């Protein structure tokens, strides 16, 4: 309890102290200058929502009018038309509009809105069309250690460290001490409230490892996204898609005969309707379920970031209407309470993702006793359990 209180206090304090200053002082977006107007704020927020190739904590303009960035570069790893190219992101000098060209072994790269483009042979600068799309370059496959990948690595290592030390504690004693005492009930919670009730006592053990990993991965990354470090990993479509596809693969591979029967040749309905139902069920199982998983997580976390940042931006956008202290006070109060809600959302989204994954897996491995009740005419009455998925 004490640990919880202390870390909560610390977290709240850290958020209050750092958030308004660090995120907004940090400006590598757009023109790389200070953010004052509504348009700049909007660009800034959209930029933040995206992945980035640098890890920058904040930046400021020095007395000489030079933009200073505080942070560190991350490695860029590209698969270009000329094979693998690697360099540090500092070579772009925080430029994000394609004006800085990095040349590696004759291949030219430019960074536009956090995407790295390979320039066509012979071109020396990026040309844009009316919609601000590059006309003489194309995106390359970008395996860089971006900020998101860096976040995944950090959180993954933290998880490994925390939980393997918890695992080691059990060798010596029955009841863990220290931080392990905080982690143990969480593990028990996922096992007893998410995995076991949804998958069933017989099969849950096989999938608990995956569910635990996913739960803590999403939760910790959501929380990391609320710190001034400004991660937005679970708000990246690529990451949530990857998680959703894992769940899809697991429940598709482990689905038993009953599960596929209920998808492809639904018992208990007229034969003519069965092919139609099969199409709907297949679409549901292979597209809708994973799509709902990936979009829900992505949208909730991105929206949370946008709302928090917009509320913080009140201090710039409303400073004429409310005076500077008024705008700051308003932004302070609103963003503080929204952040508290976001802390809840961070947990909630991790819970929902894990819970739905468990539910989908549970539906795929459920063993029907297949004593379907028959009505007076000998037709099977379909069991109600099988429609659970349609409500999600």
């Amino acid at each position, binding site marked *: 309890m004490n640990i919880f209180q202390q870390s909560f206090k610390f977290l709240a304090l850290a958020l209050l102290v750092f958030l308004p200053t660090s995120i907004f002082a940090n400006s590598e977006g757009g023109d790389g200058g200070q953010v004052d107007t509504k348009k700049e704020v909007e660009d800034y927020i959209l930029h933040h929502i995206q992945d980035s190739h640098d890890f920058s904590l904040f930046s400021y303009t020095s007395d000489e009018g030079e933009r200073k960035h505080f942070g560190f570069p991350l490695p860029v790893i590209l698969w270009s038309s000329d094979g693998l190219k690697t360099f540090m992101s500092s070579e772009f000098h925080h430029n994000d509009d394609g004006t800085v060209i990095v040349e590696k072994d004759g291949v030219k790269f430019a960074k536009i809105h956090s995407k790295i483009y390979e320039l066509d042979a012979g071109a020396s600068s990026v040309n844009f069309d009316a919609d601000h799309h590059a006309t003489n370059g194309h995106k390359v496959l970008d395996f*860089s250690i971006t900020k998101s990948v860096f976040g995944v690595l950090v959180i993954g290592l933290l998880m490994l460290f925390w939980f393997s030390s918890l695992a080691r504690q059990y060798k010596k004693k029955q009841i863990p001490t220290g931080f392990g005492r905080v982690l143990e009930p969480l593990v028990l919670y996922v096992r007893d409230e998410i995995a076991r009730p949804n998958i069933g006592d017989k099969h849950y053990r096989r999938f608990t490892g995956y569910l635990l*990993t996913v739960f803590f991965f999403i939760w910790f990354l959501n929380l990391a996204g609320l710190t001034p470090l400004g991660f937005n990993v679970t708000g990246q479509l690529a990451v949530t898609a*990857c998680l959703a596809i894992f769940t899809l693969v697991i429940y598709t591979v482990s689905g038993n005969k009953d599960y596929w029967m209920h998808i492809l040749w639904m018992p208990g309905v007229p034969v003519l309707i069965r092919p139609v139902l099969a199409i709907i069920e297949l679409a549901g199982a292979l597209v809708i379920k994973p799509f709902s998983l990936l979009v829900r997580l992505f949208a909730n976390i991105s929206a949370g970031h946008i709302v928090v940042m917009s509320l913080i931006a009140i201090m710039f956008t409303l400073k004429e209407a409310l005076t500077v202290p008024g705008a700051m006070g308003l932004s302070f109060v609103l963003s503080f309470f929204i952040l508290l809600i976001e802390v809840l959302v961070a947990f909630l989204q991790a819970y929902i993702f894990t819970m739905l994954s468990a539910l989908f897996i549970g539906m795929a491995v459920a063993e029907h006793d297949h004593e379907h009740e028959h009505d007076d005419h000998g037709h099977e009455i379909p069991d109600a359990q099988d429609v659970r998925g349609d409500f999600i």
Partner: protein
Amino acid sequence: MDKLLNDFSPGLFVVSTILLLALIALMVKFAWKPILNSLNEREEGIQGALDAAEKAKREMANLQADNQKLLQEARLERETMLKEARELKSKMIADAEEEAKTQANKMIAQAQDAIASEKKAAMAEIKSHVAGLSLEIAEKVVRNELSNKDKQLELVESMLGEATLN
């Protein structure tokens, strides 16, 4: 939708897939498996301890019930023993009384028999005595008659008077 697709980075997708696969494998091997095993073991241990305690409690209750039963039996036995002793006592007393009574009766009967036989003997003696006396008297009378008729009569008279006194 266009923007969403534009934001989707295939490179990040590949990298995060690899990292997540590695993370899941490592976590399962180094964290979840040992943790879940230990938790299960602990839960089974607790369940076992609870069961054992419950069993011990039940055994204790059984033991107590047995003790109670034993005590009850002992008490009953004591009571029956006491009762038997009391019965024996009264029976012995009754027997003794009976014995004494029959003995006494027997003695009384013997005494009576003895008295009766003594009486008979006494009577016989008296009879023989009386017969002797009568013979004596008759002798004396006969003798006196022979000497003096009056005196003989007088003697008879006096003798008879004596005899009746007897």
